[in-house]
């Protein structure tokens, strides 16, 4: 869900448990919105545009996330969009942002496969596919996988291979962390930027 812009933040909380005094249905989030709106009024249309982008991204995020969501917060530069739901409304957390809109009726599920809906847990990192191709966990058939769940990896350590056009592209971790999950089956096709290995950053 990163947009390539270094200042972009996306958070989503799946926690359906208790929550504090701030969780006044929507008001907190909208207040943040209002504040930004007020500040941005001087800057002309850029704030509105940024917020429109945030709204759109929020719709996508909600559509992509599985299970009930309690709170989302998106920031891009100075613009912030935050929405928080009542726990009793978890089942319909999509309503304020119209989940239906993100999935046009009758449209076949094309584009991003389920695995692109990532991260499932905030704070987790992923090693992603640098190229479209076939994912392999080991350097060659029968060899030991580069990494397994529970392993600690260093930045730059090879964790997988993506084969494209018979060229083996080594995939390396960009940070240190513990392998939480292997997200793709060995030998399966992957798209560009698809999360392959989930890390709990060290």
């Amino acid at each position, binding site marked *: 869900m990163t947009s*390539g812009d270094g200042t972009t933040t996306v958070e989503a909380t799946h926690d359906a448990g208790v929550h504090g005094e701030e969780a006044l249905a929507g008001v907190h989030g909208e207040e943040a919105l209002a504040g930004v709106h007020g500040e941005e009024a001087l800057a*002309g*249309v*850029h704030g*509105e*545009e940024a917020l*429109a*982008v945030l709204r*759109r991204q929020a719709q*996508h995020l909600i559509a992509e996330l599985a299970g009930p969501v309690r709170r989302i917060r998106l920031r891009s530069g100075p613009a912030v969009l935050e929405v928080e739901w009542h726990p009793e409304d978890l089942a319909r957390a999509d309503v304020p942002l119209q989940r239906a809109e993100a999935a*046009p009726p009758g*449209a*076949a599920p*094309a*584009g*991003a496969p389920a695995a*692109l809906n990532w991260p499932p847990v905030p704070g987790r990192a992923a090693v992603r596919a640098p*190229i*479209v*191709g076939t994912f392999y966990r080991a350097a060659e058939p029968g060899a030991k996988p580069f990494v397994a769940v529970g392993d600690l990896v260093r930045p730059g350590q090879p964790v997988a291979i993506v084969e*494209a*056009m018979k*060229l083996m592209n080594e995939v390396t971790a960009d940070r240190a962390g513990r392998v939480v999950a292997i997200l793709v089956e060995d030998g399966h*096709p992957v*798209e*560009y*930027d*698809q999360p392959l290995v989930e890390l709990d950053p060290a």
Partner: protein
Amino acid sequence: MFETVLIANRGEIALRVLRACKELGVRTAVVYSAADADSAVVRLADQAVRIGPASSRRSYLNAAAIVEAARQVGAQAVHPGYGFLSEDADFAEICADNGLTFIGPPPAVMAALADKSSARALMSRAGLPLSPGSVAPVPNAAAAAEVAEAVGYPVIVKATAGGGGRGMTVVHAPGELRRAYARTRAAAQAAFGDDRVYVERYLSEARHVEVQVLCDSHGNGVHLGTRDCSVQRRHQKLVEEAPAPALPAAVLDTIAETALRGALKVGFVGAGTLEFLVDAEEQFHFLEINCRIQVEHPVTEMVTGIDLVHEQLHIAAGVPLRWRQEEIHLHGVAVECRVNTEDPERDFAPTPGRLERFTPPGGPFTRVDTHASAGYLIGPWYDSLLAKVIVWAPDRELALNRLERALEEFDIAGPGVHTTIPFVRRVLDDAAFRKGRYTTGLVDRLLAAPAQRPTATPAPRPAPAAEPDVTHRRTR
């Protein structure tokens, strides 16, 4: 027919190809860059594969990723659209090596025709008249000057590897030649990795007339008449029409028949376009051949009733041509204009942005090809072509009235977004254009004249756009 076709393009042409596939019952797969994840063609395709980041070098120009995607979706054929890899003979060969049908001519034919100098030589041998100049590349400045003296100034120095608006320099006087020669070679080397150039006479007030041909893989071919694309700004077409106006039918027939003969002689297969310049004496001179669908193909579709992308697919699948020449009839007049997100007031600089309103025109004999919709974000990465508006009418005057009507309806608005619509409307208003008596000099004349700006409050200027990825910005 193929079971699955991979569409290796984006924007309106990707959608155009998708439509043709769906209409023929072909399963569609499309590649997309990270910047196009929300595009209409990704939504509508049966399958979509993300092949790279926004940068076209790493996505739409990434042959390995595209072939890999074709493998993943089980495609039998790849449709390259226009631009990007559509005229890349290497890509066509990689497709063939991987068991994929590249929808276009055989790689060897493409390779021979992609080189302008080689195409000139081939077509000259095939009997097509060339503009006076060198056929082979000129080896040095002295040789260039010799050719220029022989054909007379002004001349144009062209890179053999160039495409459309890039890699060419007009030279008005002998004193300028040496520098222009050196500069063009250097630019060609930088842009195409190939510094060969040739020299031909420059026709400043000519008509750009082109011929659409369809050739099957069994040696049959037909032409579908002419198009006039003289309304160009720096070799970028803005308005196109079929048939070419204000030229005698006999001249147009001769050009079309000559073009088809040339295409068949060089072994062309698929949908192609042969471009000519027609001078004031109605003499025509071969310029180049394009081995793919053109942006302006809809005007030919509207006057012939033939769906050119359907025919590309049939031809690629080995089906013999479904028409004989005498079965092809031209009806009425079709005109297309390109709606680019560019600001004509700022030297046609691209104006990316979010479309808050986007309501294309509709109604009788009005066609719009666009990938955009309300809410669409025009990024800075690719071509600025937002939509094509194409109209048909029984005669040219009514067609132009209809196009004016359609453009007046077209409602596009977003912060900082400008389009070429106001400029196109100036073209449609121009007396010489109205009479059909215009040349490639039209746009420069209009740009030199003071624009009559509408009295509306000027919109705020957008922030400077990021540098667009220029690879895709060539003339088609």
